[in-house]
């Protein structure tokens, strides 16, 4: 039981110390620009959907 506890603790501590890799250079700017495009993109609202013209059925 003590060996199990030791294993759990040792592995947990080792994983917790995983050295993080750096974000790629410019990643934050690229994300900001992408969010900018989200902000400016027109949203498709329920109102807009209602106004979408329906195709007329072809008369036989």
């Amino acid at each position, binding site marked *: 039981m003590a060996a199990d506890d030791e294993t759990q603790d040792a592995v947990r501590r080792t*994983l*917790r110390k*995983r050295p993080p890799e750096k974000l*790629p250079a410019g990643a934050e700017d*690229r*994300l900001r620009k992408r969010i900018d495009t989200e902000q400016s993109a027109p949203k498709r609202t329920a109102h807009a959907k209602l106004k979408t013209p329906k195709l007329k059925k072809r008369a036989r």
Partner: protein
Amino acid sequence: VDVDETLVADAARGNRDAFDELVRRYQSRLFQLVRILTGGDEESEDLVQETFVRAYRALGQFRGESTFRTWLHRIAVNVVRSHVARRNSRRTRAPIVEDRDDDDPVLGHVASLEDLEIAVVRRRMIDQALARLPPDMRLLITLRDVQGLEYREIAMITGLPIGTVESRIFRGRRRLRPMLAPLLVRSAQRREN
């Protein structure tokens, strides 16, 4: 008052600076998560971007039933799962981490590569050990032991009962023990010195 709560409330009201601050607080953590779960996929940055874009779109629907951290991790896990499923179906890329066999040369020889930086070697060994776990077990262990999430948060993210989360993490650590042995030995040696 929880900082995230304040930032989320402000961001939901359209405060862009607040959302940018949330990005700064979490993007590095999410990058680590995505890198591990995808086996260091070159598209990791895109997947982190996609996570934040989805969060941004859905911010108005965030009801605070979980913490923002839990909610954001759940989005990231879904983004990664979709990506891995697409990648597997393409089958034109290099083999994914789940398919790596057990005699991967890097892990076997990495300890002798003294010219590599210790941090890089250490990270690679950890990632390769994690890559040998079944994907679901790897996810749980990564969320708990690398990301530091609570068991109840992991249960919310994965939809698994908390007891299942605990037992799988317990078994996962047992499986990792021999694979991480060189690192565990080294830390013991350092303590002795």
